[in-house]
């Protein structure tokens, strides 16, 4: 039995995106409910990286906020090391909050532009009362800056004096400040230059092995996921369609959507090769397609896919949500 750090079960979140009630009344509009996350379950082993992949609008960032307790789930729950983060504020949830942190997507928006870097990094230390003495706090800030590859003297500077990659390092230092065990990374490199992406990813991997961190890694970039992840979950319109280990997923994708994603990703050896894409786009999440959400874009779609939501099938250590999963895995269907 592996040691589970994060357990997400039946997580669902709906948003009410209706117009104000007066407009609804006058224009006879129905309520509009958006299901951003629909019955998502997965677990993350301690010290490992779980990657969530999906197009924009698939609910990746909503899951991140739900896991961190920044949003309340409509149904389901998130257990971090056995306790519920979204429970009402108690001493226990304060203690848990210290152990959970986040690295944000946009390093230009995630650092307060009017705060000095030292103050930004020492805020979590101060809030959780980790170093009551100001001198000790300054030394800890210097240590953290050193840990992410910046100079201790950078503490007196403002965020605008740094490049995007350096800002992301500051964001990582802030995330590490409360000595967390679990870090949610919401597209941490998608706003960075390609050359800087690798540096930041390497830093995150080094820190993981050094501090034994557990990552929930959210990305739409498959090459980044392949580099970072141990387990990968593929999201489509708020539902997990395939979960597998990294190697299994990238070598033999089982869900038609996963296969499409892998085919659509540009490859370094693929110059001149014609891309095979299905041309479709993610449908309107307020009125999602019936049955399997993917059927309008799927080459294998049958009448059954239009009507019946597929169940999860466990195949050789992976979970696939597709009526045709067994046939795809055995190779009897050609995609």
């Amino acid at each position, binding site marked *: 039995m592996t040691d589970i750090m994060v357990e997400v079960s039946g997580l669902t979140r709906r948003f009410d995106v209706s117009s104000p009630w007066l407009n609804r009344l006058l224009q006879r509009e129905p309520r509009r409910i958006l299901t951003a996350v629909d019955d998502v379950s997965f677990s993350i082993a301690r010290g490992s990286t779980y990657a969530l992949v999906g197009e924009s609008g698939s609910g990746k960032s909503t899951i991140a906020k739900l896991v961190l307790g*920044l949003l309340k789930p409509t149904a389901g729950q998130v257990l971090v090391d056995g306790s519920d983060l979204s429970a009402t504020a108690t001493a226990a949830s304060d203690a848990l*909050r210290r152990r959970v942190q986040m690295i*944000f997507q*946009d390093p230009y928006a*995630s650092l307060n532009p009017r705060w000095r870097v030292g103050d930004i990094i020492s*805020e*979590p230390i101060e809030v959780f009362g980790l170093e009551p003495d100001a001198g000790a706090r*300054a030394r800890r800030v210097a240590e953290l800056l050193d840990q992410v590859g910046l100079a201790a003297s950078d503490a007196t500077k403002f965020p605008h004096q740094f490049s995007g990659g350096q800002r992301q390092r500051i964001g990582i230092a*802030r995330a590490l400040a409360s000595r967390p065990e679990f870090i949610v990374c919401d597209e941490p490199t998608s706003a960075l230059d390609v050359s800087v992406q690798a540096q930041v990813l390497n830093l995150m991997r080094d820190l993981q092995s050094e501090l034994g961190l557990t990552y929930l890694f959210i990305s739409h970039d498959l090459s980044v996921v392949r580099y970072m992840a141990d387990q990968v979950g593929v999201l489509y319109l708020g539902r997990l369609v395939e979960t597998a280990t990294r190697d299994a997923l990238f070598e033999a994708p089982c869900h038609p959507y996963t296969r499409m994603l892998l085919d659509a990703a540009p490859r370094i050896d693929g110059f001149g090769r014609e891309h095979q894409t299905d041309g479709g786009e993610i449908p309107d999440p307020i009125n999602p397609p019936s049955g399997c959400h993917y059927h309008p874009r799927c080459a294998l779609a049958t009448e059954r896919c239009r009507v019946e939501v597929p169940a999860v099938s466990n195949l050789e250590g992976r979970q696939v949500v597709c009526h045709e999963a067994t046939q795809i895995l055995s190779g009897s269907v050609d995609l």
Partner: protein
Amino acid sequence: MSSVQPTLKPSISSRLRGVWESDIAWSFRHSPVAMIAAFVFLALILAALFAPWIAPYTPFDPASLNLMDGFTPPMGEGMGSGSVYWLGTDDQGRDVFSTILYGMRLSLFIGLSAVAFAAVLGVTLGLIAGYVGGWVDALIMRVADIQLTFPSIMVALLIFGIARGLIPAEYRDQMAVWVLILSIGLSEWVQFARTVRGSAMVESKKDYVQAARLIGRKPRQILFRHLLPNVMGPVSVIATIYLALAIITEATLSFLGVGAPPTRPSLGTLISIGQDYLFSGEWWILLFPSMTLLALALSVNLLGDWLRDALNPKLQ
């Protein structure tokens, strides 16, 4: 590790150099209008501040007044005492120059206090409306919208009238200054609230606010420690422009006879007094207080215009 003790605070000299080399200081040094306006405003502020030492007479001490000196023209000698009055005297023999200094003192005090009151009120309500949203936002902003449909001088008059009605008659003259500050402040908070609400809405969507919420920061700390420093840019511009407006509003109220009492006149009261003598030839009683008000309001306004342009990234 080096043995150097890391500190989070930079030295004072590096901060001063930072201010001198900042964009805004550069813009100031290259704008003659702003420099002249700042010079005039500073001179007027100092004159008002040190009025008791600068003013040659104490105009509100009845014992030192000589009724025989009344209506002395500028640079003329008083008929009674024989002393020289640079800007002349009014009907009661009060030195116009001294009354202007004391009147400006009162006008500036009321203007600055009213703007400070309006800014604190408006910024706080705007921050709450922008961050909390929902019905709180709707309530605050609808009140603001309703108030905007009335001219601000009317709102000030209304509040002034209500406040006067609530205060017993024997305290009215004493309380007049505070009632003025309250009514002008309450008539001007809307613009602060609207501006701050907009910026607060934009800022509260940014990830640094999420990061603060993540570590369990309370809304009050997020509002005042994280959001406030990021919405203050436009506030300084509005505050400068509204300072001129507050001084003029105070002068208007006093001119209409509902502001500062004649025993403790502000610039508006002086203009109101001077108006009575314009057609009988004693022009100096009206002219000099009016010119002072003009210089004060114009210099503040020009400074505000310059500040708005200097802080607007689109014009750089």
